[in-house]
């Protein structure tokens, strides 16, 4: 049974220095509030896992939180580059970062294997590319057909963090709209934290709704607006202007740090936590 607690307490309890942390949300339901709370609590040396490191991971990488990044697409969706991500890789700023890079299909299958507690996933992919020699993928032969396939290792994060629209008072969670890889991330991890827009008496079934039972979640924390500047379908809308603003602001190290100090590290000013 998941405990309904404050975001501050949930992060303090579930996220530790050195952990492998998967924060998921595929352009939708990105847990900005939780990521910002990790920054405020000064976690260090994290292995950050995420298919699409966008602005949230750009902020965390720029603030020096990441030891390693496991990912498949590091861009500002629809806008362009992630400048803190690039600065870390191109110039080791604020420090060098280890990369483990995959394709989306590879990452999605790795999460699914982790959720199933399988050691690996079998798929078609990677062959003929320069990615194959730079990442963790191995050839495997189908024992039935003899077809040459590849295997990717399961992802087993220490902790997964996702955002959803609603939880009930028992900590059961429902999200709807683009479901990304959130269910797989929660089930692949040892510990799971879900932030929600609101806690309700009863979850009303939604078309395409994904329900995650409370007993596979360690903590649920209410964080209204906690996916902004991404969005929670039906409750908040995507702040496209912020994604464009970030492209300009984040090019400059000093401006980036000043902005993060003012808007994220000072909790009362954090947009995502309001």
């Amino acid at each position, binding site marked *: 049974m998941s405990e309904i607690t404050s975001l501050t307490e949930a992060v303090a309890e579930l996220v530790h220095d050195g952990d492998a942390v998967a924060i998921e949300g595929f352009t939708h339901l990105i847990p900005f509030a939780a990521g910002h709370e990790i920054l405020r609590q000064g976690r260090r040396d994290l292995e950050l896992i995420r298919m699409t490191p966008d602005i949230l991971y750009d902020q965390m990488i720029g603030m020096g939180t990441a030891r390693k990044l496991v990912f*498949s697409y590091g861009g500002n969706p629809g806008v362009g580059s992630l400048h803190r991500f690039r600065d870390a890789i191109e110039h080791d700023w604020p420090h060098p970062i280890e990369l483990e890079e995959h394709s989306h299909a590879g990452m999605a299958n790795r999460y699914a294997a982790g959720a199933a507690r399988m050691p690996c996933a079998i798929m*078609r992919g990677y062959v003929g*590319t*320069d990615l194959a020699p730079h990442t963790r993928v191995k050839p495997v032969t189908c024992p039935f057909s003899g077809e040459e396939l590849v295997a990717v290792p399961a992802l087993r994060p220490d902790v997964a963090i996702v955002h959803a629209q609603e939880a009930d008072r028992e900590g059961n969670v429902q999200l709807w*709209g*683009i479901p990304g*890889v959130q269910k797989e991330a929660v089930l692949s991890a040892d510990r799971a934290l879900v932030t929600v827009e609101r806690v309700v008496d009863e979850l009303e079934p939604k078309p395409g709704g*994904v329900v995650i039972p409370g007993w596979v979640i360690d903590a649920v924390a209410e964080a209204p607006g906690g996916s902004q500047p991404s969005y929670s379908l039906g409750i908040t809308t*995507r702040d496209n202007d912020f994604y464009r603003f970030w492209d300009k602001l984040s090019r400059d190290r000093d401006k980036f740090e000043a902005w993060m100090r003012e808007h994220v590290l000072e909790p009362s000013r954090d947009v995502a936590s309001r």
Partner: protein
Amino acid sequence: MTATNEQATAGEVQTVVAARRLEHARSVFIGVGRPSTAALLARMVHNPGLVLVYESGTIGAKPFHIPLSIGDGELAETADAVVSVPEMFNYWIGPGRVEVAFLGAAQVDRFGNLNSTVIGDYEHPKTRLPGAGGAPEIAACCQEVVVIAPHSPRTFVERLDFRTTVGYGDGPGDRERLGFRGRGPTAVVTDLGVLEPDAETRELKLSQIHPGVQEDQVREATAWNLEVAAALERTPPPTDEELTALRELLSR
């Protein structure tokens, strides 16, 4: 105001030509930017039943506005089905259910292989690009690939810095050897013309040239020695209908 052909910019011609490629397609896989604009234009002008598939899991999206991100709320709200990322790749992309894929890239080589990972050395890149995303499996599995890229020698290179996505590999037979199900790139649509693979050598050749563009201009914008197809065609200029629809779409 009626749009006239003379007013079409190179970018508009590129979008219009990409949209024409979807006239008879059942489904198209698209990312944001020009591919998305072209696919929406195709639905307006050529093929109202065209199924738009976005990587975010929205199948059959019918957005009124051009989305900024592949995960904009309007895509989920208008889709026939919204699926998880594992389902998108394992049940929809992998088996080749999607007919055409529109892909972009920072570098394209003569065999239609694509780089979206790094400029320079992988370990110490000069420019770190976003990375593979879904492209390698999309290009391997969708029935055909149309590459959309701006024409310059920085993009159309002799040799990729990194092969993120396989087109025809090192030439004839490579896709078959790698076990790919899709046919591979059938066209590269640029702001100057269209390149198509030679039926035998698989090398991209100039097959179509846009209004007002000279052959030399295209060759100069290509770092390899670009050959011209025997039957080089002049792109029919955008019609009033195409141009008016495109401008209306962009103004929404």
